[in-house]
């Protein structure tokens, strides 16, 4: 963008993909400076006094959720490749994922609650798999 005779401007088509991102980035930078200028006391206070994240959160359940989710995402296509176009990757990976997530979120792991979690882990993915892949004809991993 040529700004030499502002407010008249000319845009070169070859570099036109950069015009808007550049203006938006500049605006974002200015806004960030404005936020820092008006709230530096609060931000500085938060940095200096703490407590720092992840203190104060339930680390087991938070990081456990992320770890199980990543494993679930990695496992699905791997299993799915063994049975192409059947959606079994989703079904086989979802059952242990749901069970482990339920165990992670349980506060008192009584026998009854574990059985309920296991039944839920078996039924919910099966119903979803059947509905989506058979009734709705959707692609699943």
């Amino acid at each position, binding site marked *: *963008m040529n700004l030499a005779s*502002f*407010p*008249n*401007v000319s*845009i070169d*088509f*070859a570099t*036109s*993909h*950069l*015009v*808007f*991102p550049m203006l*938006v*980035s500049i*605006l*974002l930078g200015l*806004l*960030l400076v*404005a*936020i820092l200028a*008006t709230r530096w006391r609060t931000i500085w206070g938060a940095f200096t006094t703490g407590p720092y*994240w*992840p203190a104060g*959160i*339930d680390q087991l*359940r*938070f990081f*456990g*959720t*992320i770890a199980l*989710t*990543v494993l*679930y*995402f990695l496992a*699905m*296509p791997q299993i799915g490749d063994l049975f192409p176009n059947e959606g079994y990757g*989703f079904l086989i990976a979802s059952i242990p*994922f*749901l069970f482990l*997530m*339920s165990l992670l*979120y*349980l*506060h008192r792991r009584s026998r009854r609650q574990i059985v*309920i*979690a296991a039944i*839920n*882990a078996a039924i*919910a*993915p099966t119903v*979803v798999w059947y*509905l*989506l892949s058979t009734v*709705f004809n*959707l*692609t*699943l*991993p």
Partner: protein
Amino acid sequence: MDFLSMITPLFLVLIFSGTVIGIIFGAVPGMTATMAVAVCLPLTYSLGLENGLALLLGLYVGGISGGLVPAILLNIPGTPSSIATTFDGYPMTQRGEGESALKIAIFASLFGGLFSLIVLYLFAPALADFAIQFSYVEKFLIIFLALTVMAALSSSMLIGIFSGVLGILVSLIGAYDVSVGGNGEYRLMFGFMEPYLSGGFSLLPVLIGVFGLSSILIEAAGGVPENEGAAKIALGHGKKFRLSIFRGEWSNLFRSASIGTFIGLLPGVGGSAASIMSYSQAKTFSKTPKEFGKGHPTGIVASEASNNGLTGGALVPLLSLGIPGDSTTAILIGAFTLQGIQVGPLFISGNLEIWNSMIVAMLFANIFMFAIMYFAIRHIAKIVTVPKYILLPIILMMCVVGSYTINYGIMFDVWTLLIFGLFGYLAYLIGLEIAPFIIGFILGPSAEIYFVKSLESFGTVSIFFTKSWIAGVLWLLIAASIGLSIWMSMAAGRHNDET
């Protein structure tokens, strides 16, 4: 009466199912109407647009309404839009009048929903007819206005604008789309990302990530607390519900539904603002303001008429201008995109059948919502007792299904879900505003095209001020929204100094 032919048994079953599922999502604290629509969106792929929208609109109306159940019974708003319902709903429950409070809220919700539906039916086509005259210049200014209004009504204007502009920047990642006149070159990414991000991040995995997965992460970080109070829910056998409670409430009903519908018209402003604003207005106009907060039915009527008033209002800018009025209607854009239909000024005139089917679906969704909640309220109340260790894993699984199926099976979309789920959690942690971010993300590519093509055509920046009288009016509205925001922050500052 062509539209009567669309009322098939499947159409009605989908609205009914959507309303029931929506009520369940709304009634479980931590789950929202937005999440319900996002999670169920993949089910609409094979249904066609009319039937798909029937399901989604049922979810929307049910989701907004379901929030009143835990708000009244547990003092926990099921959705943010039920926040002011807790103020008087829970004290009524404590007095043993839980069932009466719920029924007052259900009636008010029905009124708000039907009022906003009438506004939608009358106002959206008129606004769309007017918007047809807009060129790229006015369209860009409309988006600019939407962002400033949204930012002005955020808790902090600076943070609101920052979040919206960040959403725009993220939406620009990928190639400058050739199909809309771009040069097809990549920007804001590294070369190795080209196979995954040539079309940028897909809208729905982003939406499902920031509204679905991030809510689960927030719950997990908080230790996934179960509702201890849920076990001892009692609707009570105190004063019975009578319609005569609404005697003298008509002005409150109309005022609150109007406020809700108006707030819905404003992009990115959520139901919590509508609920609180209507509540405070009801208190101001009441002859017995001291009764508020102690179980006064007027407070419940105000909150619930306004949050259901939001539903029709939020669809007006979506269907007439292509700008979503709230986060849930932002997801509805995904349903239209899936079926290859663009929402904007030409939508209603070009798709009369779909437009009529949406109105009919909204009408039935409100009627079903009322019937289900009024007659089955004792069963609905038990929904809040469903344990989270069962619900949250199922929702996460549905988030994955929705993200994966959106582009017919791309695993990168599932990773997008995780990336934006983590982003949503981070935004919650540092106080970024998600609604402006999402509206910016949705409108960013259009804003770029309108802005760059206007400059390419006219060769001067002054065209944004001189193109037409509409541009002048839009600039006045932009200035007014910024002025309002500055005035509001100064007033808040003075209030803080005094207290």
